[in-house]
C-alpha cells in the first residue's frame, strides 16, 4: 500500500498545479507562501520535490537555458496522474473526517 501524502507534500503538489506556465522552484515557493501566508523553507521544497519525483508522483524536465539565470536551465515539474490521484485521495480522506462537522463549531467543542 503506497504511503499517503504529508501536509507539506500536498501543498507542494497543489502549488505545482496552481502555477501558471512552467512550474519550477521559484514560482512554487512563491505560490505556497502567497496562498498560505507562511514563510516556507526553500530547501524543504526542493527536498520534497525530489522525494515526490522518486515516488513517481511528479516528473521533471529541463527547460531551455535563460540569461537571467546565468545560462542555467529551469527544472520544471509536472504532477503525474498517480500524484493527482493521491491528492484526490488525501482530500477525500480529509473531507470524510470532517464529515458534517461545522468548522466554526469545532473550537466550541469540549
Amino acid at each position, binding site marked *: 500500500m503506497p504511503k499517503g501524502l504529508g501536509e507539506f507534500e500536498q501543498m507542494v503538489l497543489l502549488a505545482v498545479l496552481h502555477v501558471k506556465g512552467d512550474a519550477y*522552484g*521559484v514560482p512554487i515557493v512563491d505560490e505556497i507562501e502567497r496562498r498560505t501566508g507562511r514563510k516556507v*523553507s526553500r530547501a524543504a521544497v526542493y527536498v520534497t520535490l525530489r522525494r515526490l519525483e522518486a515516488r513517481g508522483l511528479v516528473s521533471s524536465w529541463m527547460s531551455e537555458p535563460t540569461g537571467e539565470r546565468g545560462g542555467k*536551465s529551469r*527544472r520544471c515539474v509536472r504532477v503525474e496522474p498517480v500524484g493527482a490521484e493521491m491528492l484526490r485521495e488525501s482530500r477525500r480522506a480529509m473531507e470524510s473526517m470532517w464529515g458534517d462537522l461545522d468548522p466554526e463549531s469545532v473550537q466550541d467543542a469540549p
Partner: protein
Amino acid sequence: MSASPPGPLRRLLARALPSDVREGIVGDLDELYGARRRQGGATRAALWYAGQVLAISGRFAAERLRDDLAARSSSVGLDLKLGLRMLVKYPMLTLVGGIAIAVATAIGVGASEFVRDLLAPSLPLEDGERIVRLYQLDADAGGSTPASLYDLEVWRASISSLEELGAYVTLEQGLVSDRGDVGTVSLARISASAFRMTRVPPHLGRFLIEADEHPDATPVVVLGYDAWQTLLSGDPDPTGRVVQLGGMPTTVVGVMPEGFGFPLMQNAWVPWRADPADLQPGRAPRATLFARLAPGATLTSAQAELDIAGRRAAADFPEIYGRLSPKLSAFARRASGGRLALVLSGVGLLFVFLLVVACANVATLVFARTVTREGEIAVRTSLGATRGRIVSQLFAEALVLVGAATLSGMLLTRVTLGRIGRLFFDVQQAPRPPFWWNDALSPGTIAYAIVLALVGALMIGVVPALKATGGDVQTRLGRISAGGGQLRFGGVWTVVIVLQIAISVAFLPLAVSQAGTAFENPLLTGFPADAFVTAQLGRDPSVPLRTEAEETLFLEGSQRLFQEVRDRIATDPTVQGVALASGLSAMNHIGSPVEFVGDGSSPPISARARTLLVDRSYLDLMGATPIAGQSLGDADFGPNTRAVVVNQAFVEHALGGRNPVGGQLRFSEREGEASIVTTPAQGASVDIVGVVRNPGVDVFGPGAHAVIYAPLDLAPVTPRAVGLVGMPQAPATQLFLRMRPGAPPLAGRLYGMVGAVDPTLRLSEVGTLGEAWRPVHMGSRIGAWIFMSVGAIVLMLSVAGIYALMSFTVSQRTREIAIRTAVGAGRRQIVRVIFGRAVVQLLAGVALGSLVAVPVLRDGVADEGPGSLVVVSTLLIVAGLAACTVPVRRALSIEPAAAIKSE
C-alpha cells in the same frame, strides 16, 4: 558588473547538491539572487544567498544520510538472509562449525556464570545487596575467622551504619514429628533479627522474635517450606505442633515460604539462646554475623565504624583482639573484587581460548568455502560492489553462523547450569544449593557472550573475506576465466596445518586419558556402598567450651566419647558393625610424602600416600583383610603404637610391588598443610606390619588409592592439631556403620543415640557411602564428558579442517600437475611430489604434538594415553591423505593438451 552570486558560495552549493537537481536549484538561486541584488543591493543579496546555501546544503546532507541509513539497513537485512541461505547450502560446515562454537560458548558462558554465582552472587531478597556478612581478619593466621557473640553485642551498640545485626550457626539435626515422621533438617540457630532483615514474611504462622531468644522461653522452631511438606505433610495448620528436634520437644510456630533458605539453604530455624555469662571476650561462641546496611550507609562508612570498634577492642583486650580486625563484605560474596576479577578473567581466558581454537578452525573451513565463491566475488567487484560491501556481506554470513551457534550454546548452558550446580553442591555434600542459586544467565554474562560472538564473526568472516577480495579485479577475473583462482593456501596455511595437527595430537590423548581415569569405577560397583552409613561426629558449635581447661578436657575425652557413641550404636539390632576413622575432610587430599625404608639392603623409596587413622574395627568392617603380614591387632592400639598396615594399591603404586612387611615408613615434611588429625606427626617413624586388600570404599572415595592405615591413637592430639582453636566445629571424626540387610533407615534414631551419649555432640553429613561418593564420581564423570566433548570437537574440527586445507592446496595445483604430465612427468613421480609434501606437513604436526603429549602422558597413570596418541595421529594422517587423493586423481585424469590449451 556581474550579477552572479559569490563564487565560493555557489561552488559550495553545487558540491552539496546531488547531480540530478544541481542545475535547477543553482539556477533558481541565481535568478533570485539577481532579483534581490537589484532590489536591495549586492551585500544584502549575498547575505541572503549565503543563508540559502547553508540551509539547502544542510537539508540535502541530512537527506543523503537518511537515504544511506535506509539503504544500509536494507542491505544488512539482505546479508543476513544470504547468511541463512549459506547455513542451509553448506550443511556440513554449518554443523561442524556450529557445534564447535556452540559447545565452546556453552562451556565458557557456563563456567563464567558458575563462577559469578559462586563467588559474587546477588541475593534474591529485597535490597539483597545491602545485606552484609561480618568477620574478623586474623593477622597471625593470615585469613578470616568468625566473629563472636561478644562482638555482636558490642557492634549492635556501637555501629550505626548497620541494622538488624545478628548471628547464626548451622547444623544438621534429626527431626521426629508428633506423628512419627523422621527426617533430617538443615538447621540454623539464628538471631530473630534475621527475619526482619530479609524482609520475607512467613508463609504460615510467624517467624522468630526476640522473646524466643530468652533462656526461659518455650523452645520453638520455624520450618522451611520443604521440611513442612515432607515432615509435617504440608499440614495447613502446623503451628503449635510439637516435634522432637535433636531429641528436644520443640513447638512449631511458623513456616517460611518456598525458596527461602537464609542464611544458606536452611529449612529449619531455632532462636539462638546465648547465655549472658558466655558473652565474654575470647570466650563467647563464634558465629557468622550478618546485618543490613542502615539507610544512607555504605560498605565504606560501615567499615570505617567497624575499624574504630576494632581499634577500641584491641586497646581493651590486646591479647585477644590485637591480631584481629573486623571486616564486612556483601553477604554471599566469597571473593574480593580483585580475586573475583582474577578468577573471572581466568575463566574468560579459557573461554576465549576455546572460542579462538573453534573459530580459527571454522575460519579455515569458511576460507575454503570462500575459495569456491571466488568467481562470484570477483564478478560482483567488477560490477561495482566495493570491497567493504563484500567484506560486510561475508561478515554478516559469519555472524549468522556464530550468532545461531552462540544462541544454542547459551540455551545449552541455561538448560544444564542448574543441574551442574546441584551436582556441584552434591559433591560438596551440601543438602541442596544455596537459596540464591539460580539457573539464569546474568546480563553481564550475556553481554560477554555477545561481544565474543562478534569477535568470532570477525575472525570467521572478515579474515577470509579480506584475503578473498584483495588484489586487482582484472587479474582475478582473468585468472578465473582461465580456469584457476588466485587464492592460495600458501606458507601461512602450511603453518596452520602443522599447528592444527600438533594441537590435536597434544590435546586429544590427554583428554582420552583423563576421561578414562574418570570413567574407571572398578570398586564402587562390586561394593555394597549403600549398606554403609557414614556421618561426621563432632561438637555442636553453638555450645561453647568456656575455658581452656574445658577444651583440654574435651580433647582428652573426645576419643573416649566417640568410642562411647560407637559402642552404643553397635548395640542397635539393625547395625552389623561400626567403626571410626579420621574425617572425610580428606576428600581432595592428594596424600603426604612418605619414605619407605626397607631392611637396609636397598635405598629408601620416596612416595606419596594418604594416611587414614582407623579404630580397631575399621579394616574388618570395610573388608580390608590382610594378604601379607597381619592386620592391626589390639596390641597395636595404645599410646606407644608404631604399627601401620598398607593396602595393595600402596604396594603396587608406591613400592612397585616390593613386599613392605617388616619395613619402616617415615612421614616427611608437611608442605604447609594444616596439622589435622588425619596424619601422624612429621618425622614419625612407623613399622609396616601387614598389607591389606583395597577396601571397596574409604574416606578417600572409590578407587584404588595408595593408603596407609594407622591406629587412631597415633596422631598427636593438641587443641591446635585438631583445629579446635578458632574453629567451632572441630574435632570431628568419621563414623562408619554397616547395616544389616533389609534394616530400616537409621538416620532419625542415630541423632538420638548420639545425643544420649553427650548432648554437646552432633552428627552431620549423614548418608550412605554410596550417597557420599556417587556425586563425586558423577562430578568427575561430568568433567570427563566435558573433556571428551571438547576433545571430540577438536578432533572433528581438525579432521574437517585438515581435509579442507589439504584438498584445496592440492586442487590449487591441478594445472601444475596437468602441465607436468604434459611435459612428460610420470604419474608415480607426481603422486610422490604431492603426497610427499602432505606427508611432511602431517608428520611435522604429529611430531610437534607428541613433543607435548608424550612427557605428560608418561607421568599419567591411565593406560589409554599412548594408545590414543597413536589412534589420533593415525586418524589425522589418514584424513589428510584422503583429502589429497580426490584432487590428485582428478588432476591426473586431465588431458595434458586440455591443460596446455587453457593456459
